[in-house]
């Protein structure tokens, strides 16, 4: 793979957005102004092109490889999955300790190096490709905003950091990108920093992520202490034994200490993943993060950054798959979060809040995927989710743009007359999210549900229930906002930034009756069309013949994780139904043919079942939110206890406020008082004593007698002489 020119020039992929960000950041305020999006468009666009070329080249490379095998129909496990990867070292970033003890924890080295394999390439295409579409949209959405250049500079920086995150060859690079995207997220959530709610949301996101990152940081340190390296596969790439994942892949060669560390490591890493990907105890920041501009919600808080946790677990799968407890925790937390967030989304009235909880829920699905030994399904859902959730967020951005900042679905209805194109785009996104055949979400969600069922029927049932809720809340939103009688809010929202309005809508009353003013400028609709195409076809294209699975199966991470999982769990399997499914890792399926066929059949049953469930959810939403809306209100009134619990998000925020934030604030106040009165008091005392002494001396000795001064001077000299010479 390293012979590809895109790999040799891979430094361009992160560098170009960074250069764009620097240009927009340094020259945007004075010179570029309204044209600040150009450096970002060019930089991210070039990166997107490079990523896609890299993807095509990698696919072509794998195509050649498959003909080289002697018996392509039934090759042995290892040979069937020749991993394709390339390490690219730019320079040594950090080196500390004794170089003669390389490979032990006496010598720390972190290279600024990239590691290319199918997983990286897939993630790069998502980050740069979808990132580019969102950047294009953002230029239309943010037009005329104050600080336009600042917005695009942050976007470029974000893409750079995200590229570092997915391309890095070691945990330190991952951590760099991880913190970098966290910073950009903070800056962009707080983009409207004049609004106190935006400032608070930004701080909350940053602080909650800190909790997770603490675990992640400790995990990295522990990994280095035990294994003497932080690189996934060592500087020489996959194949040796000097990488972290390679060491973990051979548990029989490890010392007792290393085995202990290996047991704890996944829990620490998953803490970071739960923070960044907004999973159960740490999910509270994501709904608040919707304070940021809508393109930010789409790019950072739906499509890319929040999936970093899933990427991390998929990448470090080898550390997880040997550990039953860790896998179970990931799957449990994922399913619990999925259900919890989906239930909260049932009764949110803000479009973006619904999608925020939906994102948390879908991320839960991905975690279930990686937790039940099916990282391929998790990454598959990551890709399709990136398309349709970006589409949904940006569509709601169009709605917000047209409705002068209003996002409350109680105040709008029947918008299909006002926003005909957006309506279709939103419908496609909703169908994909609800999991209707043949839209993208269906295939990936189905794969996760099937894998979850394979692992534990209870888990599968929870996932199916969540799918039902998902279909319901998605179409509740759609039917409320786009169907039914036309209701349009006619006064701008108090938070609305007046500049959203285009110059040509000079009437001001442009909403609703806009005959001349377009609510759907091409610059905002075109990127959505591409995302919609992706939301329609990405699922079936990638699912067909396990295309994505076999592609990802050539990633060393998936190969080592799959082999380790097989070696760990197959000897313990009660019967052949409990064998690890190699397809979950994109590996060649070596299990008995009849078992495979039976599984295939049950998979089809699942597809049917989840279609029925999705349609049922849509039907309920249709009844309650289109045909008979008063009935929905009556129902809510009858179940007012539950409705109130859900509307208040189960009081989780309040619980955190009371149990964590308030005690910490009290502690902080106590420390402040300690500092103010005890420490500062001592310092003040140290200054006061000489002052007091001086005052007393002034009163007693400074009395204006010249002779007295002279005498005391003489006595002083005498004392000094006495001391010096005796």
């Amino acid at each position, binding site marked *: 793979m390293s012979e590809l020119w895109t790999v040799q020039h891979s430094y361009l992929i992160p560098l170009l957005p960074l250069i764009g960000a620097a240009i927009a950041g340094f020259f945007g305020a004075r010179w570029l102004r309204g044209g600040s999006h150009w450096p970002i468009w060019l930089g991210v666009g070039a990166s997107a092109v490079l990523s896609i070329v890299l993807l095509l080249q990698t696919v072509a490379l794998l195509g050649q490889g498959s003909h080289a095998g002697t018996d392509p129909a039934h090759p042995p496990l290892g040979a069937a999955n020749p991993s394709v990867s390339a390490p690219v070292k730019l320079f040594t970033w950090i080196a500390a300790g004794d170089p003669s003890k390389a490979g032990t924890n006496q010598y720390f080295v972190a290279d600024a190096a990239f590691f290319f394999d199918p997983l990286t390439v897939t993630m790069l295409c998502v980050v740069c490709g979808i990132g580019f579409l969102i950047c294009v949209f953002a230029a239309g959405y943010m037009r005329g905003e104050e600080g336009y250049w600042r917005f695009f500079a942050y976007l470029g920086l974000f893409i750079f950091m995200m590229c570092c995150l997915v391309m890095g060859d070691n945990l330190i690079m991952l951590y760099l990108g991880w913190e970098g995207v966290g910073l950009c997220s903070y800056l962009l959530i707080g983009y409207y920093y004049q609004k106190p709610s935006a400032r608070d949301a930004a701080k909350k996101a940053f602080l909650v992520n800190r909790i997770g990152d603490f675990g992640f940081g400790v995990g990295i340190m522990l990994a280095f202490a035990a294994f003497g390296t932080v690189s996934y596969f060592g500087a020489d790439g996959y194949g040796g034994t000097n990488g972290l994942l390679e060491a973990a892949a051979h548990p029989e060669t490890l010392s007792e200490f290393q085995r202990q560390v290996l047991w704890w490591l996944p829990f620490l890493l998953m803490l970071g993943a739960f923070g960044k990907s907004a999973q159960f105890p740490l999910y509270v920041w994501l709904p608040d993060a919707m304070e940021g501009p809508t393109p930010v919600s789409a790019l950072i808080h739906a499509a890319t950054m929040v999936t970093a946790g899933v990427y991390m677990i998929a990448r470090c799968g080898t550390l997880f798959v040997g550990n039953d407890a860790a896998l179970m925790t990931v799957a449990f937390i994922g399913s619990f979060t999925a259900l919890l967030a989906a239930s909260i989304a049932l009764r949110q009235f803000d479009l973006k809040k619904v999608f925020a909880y939906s994102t948390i829920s879908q991320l839960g699905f991905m975690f279930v995927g990686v937790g039940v030994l099916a990282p391929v399904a998790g990454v598959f859902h990551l890709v399709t989710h990136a398309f349709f959730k970006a589409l949904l967020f940006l569509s709601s951005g169009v709605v917000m743009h047209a409705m002068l900042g209003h996002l409350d679905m109680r105040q709008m209805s029947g918008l299909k007359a006002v926003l005909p194109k957006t309506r279709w785009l939103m419908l496609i996104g909703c169908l994909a999210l609800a999991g209707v055949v043949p839209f993208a979400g269906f295939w990936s969600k189905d794969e996760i549900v099937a894998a979850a069922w394979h692992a534990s029927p209870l888990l599968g049932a929870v996932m199916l229930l969540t799918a039902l809720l998902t279909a319901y809340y998605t179409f509740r939103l759609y039917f409320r906002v786009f169907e039914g009688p036309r209701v349009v809010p006619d006064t701008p929202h108090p938070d609305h930034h007046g500049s959203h309005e285009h110059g040509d809508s000079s009437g001001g009353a442009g909403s609703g009756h806009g005959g001349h003013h377009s609510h759907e400028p091409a610059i905002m609709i075109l990127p959505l069309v591409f995302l919609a195409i992706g939301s329609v076809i990405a699922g079936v294209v990638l699912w067909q013949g396990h295309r994505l699975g076999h592609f990802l199966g050539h990633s060393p991470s998936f190969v080592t994780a799959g082999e380790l999982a097989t070696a760990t769990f197959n000897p313990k399997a009660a019967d052949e139904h409990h064998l690890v499914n190699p397809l979950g890792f994109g590996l060649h399926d070596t299990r008995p043919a009849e078992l495979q066929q039976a599984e295939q059949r049950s998979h089809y049953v699942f597809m049917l079942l989840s279609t029925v469930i999705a349609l049922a959810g849509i039907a309920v939403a249709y009844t309650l939110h289109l045909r008979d809306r008063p009935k929905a209100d009556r129902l809510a009134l009858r179940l007012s206890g539950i409705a109130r619990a859900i509307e208040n998000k189960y009081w989780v925020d309040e619980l955190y406020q009371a149990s964590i934030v308030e005690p910490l604030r009290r502690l902080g106040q106590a420390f402040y008082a300690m500092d103010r009165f005890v420490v500062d008091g001592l310092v003040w005392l140290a200054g006061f004593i000489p002052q007091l002494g001086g005052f007393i001396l002034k009163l007693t000795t*400074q*009395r*204006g*007698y*010249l*002779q007295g001064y*002279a*005498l005391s001077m*003489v006595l002083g000299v005498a004392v000094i002489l006495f001391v010096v010479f005796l």
Partner: protein
Amino acid sequence: MTSTLDQVGLQHYLAVGAIMFAIGLIGFISRRNLILMFLCTELMFQGVVINLVAFGGFVGFFAGLAFTIFVVVLAGAVASLAVGLIVLLFRHKATLDADAWRELRG
């Protein structure tokens, strides 16, 4: 033959210097007349200068002699300033008593 002057050694010069310095010091502390106090400081100056000259002459270290010239010139400058100041002070209070300026508490 040895003259009386030949028997005068370094100690004698130093003793004269020390006596002059001591007289000046005691005078400065005990008198309150500004002019007298000023003269006493001059006396202390000359006591020190005698020390310098004596060491310069006996040790053969001529920097002491050169330094003496400086001090004498400086003392002259100081004298002109100090007498001017004393005249000013006298014009204010019509007395030369240093205690008259006690409220300055300098």
